[in-house]
């Protein structure tokens, strides 16, 4: 005869197997929405707004730019199983062109702000004979650096959650409003910091700042300088010519530039500021921490 202990162990094992096979269940006992995002900012927004009612995944490896990531087929199958797939729109994630995803779960977070999208300056079109034209290149896609656009993307996330779980509307709305307040505060800080630079020429080492610059009235000058390599003299000469015509106070980088580069810029009266886009999850903190750190770094330079 089976002892009570054996029965208890078997029951525990069965319970464990059942739990592991069941969809994720939150504290309230409801199954959580399975959400897949295509970048970290959307993952962050989903987690902030959805709380325990969502289970958010962003499976891109930590060392790959999610905009150019190519998910393998197993990962695509996992995306297909999601209740909601949050995409950035604006041509972000080229892989979406050639993968097969369910339309029902797809949420384009910039669909409602398509009028605000900026076409990439590198855009070039091609056609075959007299056939229709295809634009090679898309809109600029780091939309969330403009806090106003980030709010709209978060709103799209909230609306998608409410549509699938209308019973939790007050919960989602309340958490969205908190995030909105934080993004509004961030926007106000940028406005107060950048108001005096409106119309100024700002060299940038990356082409990810279009929306940020458009929001605060800055004129970008793309350089494509690498932060860890000294630019050739030709590039410095070009910069000097620009400085002669337009006063330049700072240059924007996506990561900390080499100290020699920083020094050479400082000799020209140009401070280096790192503004990160947070496509990938930071090692410490979250999306809003990265955004606030951007403001603080700029404040240090501006002061």
């Amino acid at each position: 005869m089976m002892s009570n202990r054996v029965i208890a162990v078997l029951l525990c094992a069965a319970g464990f197997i059942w739990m592991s096979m069941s969809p994720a269940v939150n504290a309230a006992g409801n199954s959580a929405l399975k959400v897949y995002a295509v970048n970290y900012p959307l993952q962050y927004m989903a987690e902030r707004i959805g709380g325990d009612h969502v289970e958010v995944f962003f499976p891109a490896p930590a060392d790959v730019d999610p905009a150019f990531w190519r998910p393998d087929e197993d990962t695509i199958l996992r995306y297909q199983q999601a209740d909601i797939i949050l995409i950035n729109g604006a041509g972000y994630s080229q892989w979406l062109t050639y993968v097969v995803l369910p339309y029902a779960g797809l949420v384009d977070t910039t669909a409602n702000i398509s009028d605000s999208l900026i076409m990439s300056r590198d855009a070039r079109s091609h056609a075959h004979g007299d056939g229709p034209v295809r634009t090679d290149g898309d809109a600029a896609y780091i939309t969330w650096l403009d806090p106003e656009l980030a709010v709209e993307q978060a709103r799209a996330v909230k609306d998608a959650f409410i549509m699938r779980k209308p019973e939790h509307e007050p919960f989602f709305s309340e958490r969205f409003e908190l995030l909105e307040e934080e993004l509004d505060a961030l926007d106000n800080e940028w406005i107060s910091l950048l108001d005096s630079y409106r119309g100024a020429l700002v060299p940038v080492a990356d082409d990810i700042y279009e929306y940020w610059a458009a929001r605060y009235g800055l004129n970008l000058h793309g350089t494509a300088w690498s932060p860890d390599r000294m630019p050739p003299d030709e590039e410095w000469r070009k910069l000097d010519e620009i400085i002669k015509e337009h006063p330049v106070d700072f240059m924007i980088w996506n990561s900390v530039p080499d100290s020699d580069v920083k020094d050479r810029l400082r000799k020209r009266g140009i401070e280096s500021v790192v503004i990160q886009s947070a496509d990938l999850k930071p090692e410490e903190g979250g999306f809003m921490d990265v955004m606030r750190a951007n403001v603080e770094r700029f404040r240090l330079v501006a002061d």
Partner: protein
Amino acid sequence: MGNILYLAWRYLKYYKGRSCILVFCLTFAMALPITVHRLVGALQTDMLQRADETPLVVGPKGSRFDLALHALYFEAEAPGIMTQSERFAIEDSGYAFSIPLFVMYQARGFPIVGTTLDYFTFRDIGVERGRMMTLIGDCVVGWEVAQRLGLSPGDRLLSDPENVFDLGGVYPLNMRVTGVLERNRTADDMAVFVDVKTSWIIEGIGHGHEEFYDDTDPALILEEDDDLVVASPQLETYTEITPDNIHTFHFHGDPRDFPLTAVIAVPEDDRSATLLLGRYVDGAGAYQALRPSRVIGELMGMIVQLRRFFDVQHIVMLGVTSCFVFLVMLLSTRLRSREVETMYHLGCSRGTIIRLLAAELCLVLVASVSLAFLLSSIVMSAVVWWVPMVF
């Protein structure tokens, strides 16, 4: 009673030939109407079930029957081509979720259905072998297609060229079979499913080709400036999508203008369905919306009329056969007059003799009806096997 049945059974067994002919005639006389009745009933149930499961279909104006049969069974040619903008308009209206269908091409005689993964959720079909398509150029095949073409996951399937004499036409696409769908005994078993983007690649709207570099053959560039490169139509495009070239695939033109042959609209409730139908009721636009259940119901009405005709014919035939059986029994009784007389002299009452003859007739009828139903079931199974998409 048991004795009478035993005597009747022994009599029928003794006159094997005559009994078999009687059973044979009655079996076929009954099997035909029973089979037709069951076949039409099954057809009606099946067609109406699929139609009932499809709330609304939106498509180009033209024959309602063609549109319904096209969207439900991928059989009839669509009345025309619609653009994706209409699908987006349905979505934007908020009345319904839309599932696009683009059914223009075939692969080894089976229709290639360009749709989205939502179609499989909507029809509740899973993958029996392999897995769902993940990339453009992938396809999942219906159960019957896999059986007939001997396809398994990992095999390749070439789309049929539209016109073998049109050298400048659309090239066939070499597709990768990623899975075989569960059998659901509908038109889905007889179709090849691809993502709608893949069907547009077959249509020629999307394609992959080498990038334009400085070393691209100048003969392939007709015109070039900072904003636009016009390539020669002779620029080689890929006819097979591989991991190496998949990232070069792209679509030309405005997605709103991309073609569809029908859209399945899935409204949230009856009110939304009515409101969506109302958008098309004035008939002013280029599209129509219909409830497949009504259209197929009308079609079935015609089939029911036809079945009534058959039923009358079979009743007449059964009547004639019954008269024939009655005649046979009558003649048989006359032939057996000496036998009946002997039974009478042995002490059998007239009632017993009548019960004995009735028992023989009953045994013949029971055997005939049983065989008729058995035959009908065999025919039904054979039809289900040969015409799986109907049942």
